[in-house]
């Protein structure tokens, strides 16, 4: 299969086997690979493809059984969650092969909550609270926590969220982690307002959002920060103005 595909690619480049392998790979080995008599090792394949400016990910399209990238899957779940779209969540829960079982667990928790089941069973509680001792705030963990924020007691939540703010600001994290932290801040603000917490918590979250880069990716978070800023300062009219601009035409 791989051999035939390599041959196809070589032909499309109008190369001979010599031209294809020159300086990278033994030609007779390559010839056996093309005929599926030998298997090529991963490093050689990566080197060969990159030499010809071909993406490995593109080359292997069709060889994988899992087509969805983790980030795209995460985004679909997040969107369904924010839209309270139980049908989509159920569909994803049943039809997706989750590589990370923790993601599946989160989807099930979300479905339960949207169906009005508010009490967590012991295992789910343990799972959500395990993040209070988390040290490694990579994007996977940030994503999981984002969807469980309203499961925590307010005092725990405050510590959790402020730890995340601190970590993300101090360590120069990647764009994706930053995005997730920003979404966590927004969800946190929403929860704080709903549960009518003290203003200091709200102000901390606003301050975090205002430190985000002034790029298009964070524009909506910065706008939301301005919205909450007006709310905290009792400028209801100003806050409504922002809300009105953001609703659909």
């Amino acid at each position, binding site marked *: 299969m791989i051999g035939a595909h390599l041959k196809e690619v070589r032909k499309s480049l109008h190369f001979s086997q010599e031209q294809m392998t020159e300086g990278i790979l033994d030609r007779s080995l390559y010839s056996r690979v093309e005929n599926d008599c030998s298997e090529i090792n991963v490093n050689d394949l990566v080197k060969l493809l990159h030499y010809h400016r071909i993406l490995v990910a593109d080359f*292997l399209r069709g060889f994988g059984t899992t087509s969805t990238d983790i980030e795209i899957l995460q985004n679909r779940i997040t969107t369904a969650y924010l839209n309270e779209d139980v049908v989509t969540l159920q569909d994803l829960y049943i039809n997706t092969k989750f590589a990370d079982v923790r993601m599946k667990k989160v989807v099930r928790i979300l479905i339960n909550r949207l169906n009005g089941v508010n009490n967590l069973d012991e295992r789910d509680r343990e799972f959500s609270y395990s993040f209070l001792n988390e040290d490694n705030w990579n994007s996977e963990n940030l994503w999981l926590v984002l969807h469980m924020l309203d499961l925590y007691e307010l005092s725990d939540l405050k510590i959790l969220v402020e730890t995340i703010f601190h970590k993300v600001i101090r360590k120069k994290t990647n764009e994706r982690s930053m995005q997730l932290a920003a979404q966590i801040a927004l969800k946190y603000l929403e929860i704080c307002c709903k549960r009518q917490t003290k203003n200091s918590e709200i102000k901390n979250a606003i301050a975090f959002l205002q430190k985000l880069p002034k790029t298009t990716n964070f524009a909506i978070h910065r706008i939301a920060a301005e919205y909450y800023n007006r709310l905290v300062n009792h400028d209801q009219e100003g806050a409504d103005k922002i809300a009105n601009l953001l609703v659909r035409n």
Partner: protein
Amino acid sequence: MTIGQQLKKTRLLFGLTQEEMSAGIVSESFYSRVERDKNAITINKLIAMLNANNISLNDFFKTFDNEGMPELKRQRQIYSAFNDRDLDQLHQIEKTLSSKNDVLYFKTKLIIATLEHRSIKMPDSIRKQLKTNLIDLDLKEQDFWDLAISVPLYQFSEFTPLMSYIIAHFSKLDLDNPQVVISLMNLLIGYLDRAYREKHLAEAKKTLNFANKIPNDFEIMFHKLIIKYYSALIDKNLEMSKGITDLLQICGYQRYIDMLPQANRGSK
């Protein structure tokens, strides 16, 4: 990043043991040697292992593609600077590109010229490469970055059929992919900008209707606001257009506003 390192990282990320990861395709001891880069693994076996564990090949190889083809990273930086309307960043990127990287170099030049409202001279061969034919338009496979940055290369009437085609095939677009949606929004904004400045109001309205059909996902709410600004300009709704620019200014997006057509001065 080596294959071994990436395997280990992926395995730990998904909470798998070495036995689970090797999935009966290779022996556990061989797998363990691969993870320590003591043995090489063939692509066939690696694919079988990743498939057995539902790990996306794309996710697994992305890192290697980024490292092995640095121009891709460059290209993403260029698109991202375009998305931000960040001229400083674009000028910096321009300096680091040798003209040997022909297409990337001219892409950068083209974006800069567009944002500075200048026209640009470029070799015909490059121009041809940057202009997409309707026939080449494959809605399933690609994002719209190249199309979005090349809007100024077309006569307006030349571009309209491309837009109509995309609008007609809306259901084929992969809107789950953030790069597709964000680049599509940039395309719509670019087209809308021309339609407004060149007074093709019917086309502008068609584009606005289409934009409204795109789900209001988080990552494009800013772009939707910009599109709303154009809609306010067309409707001569001064209160709304001013409301939007005021808000963007307070939130730190003066740079973006400066590139938009102004309400009081009318078009141009």
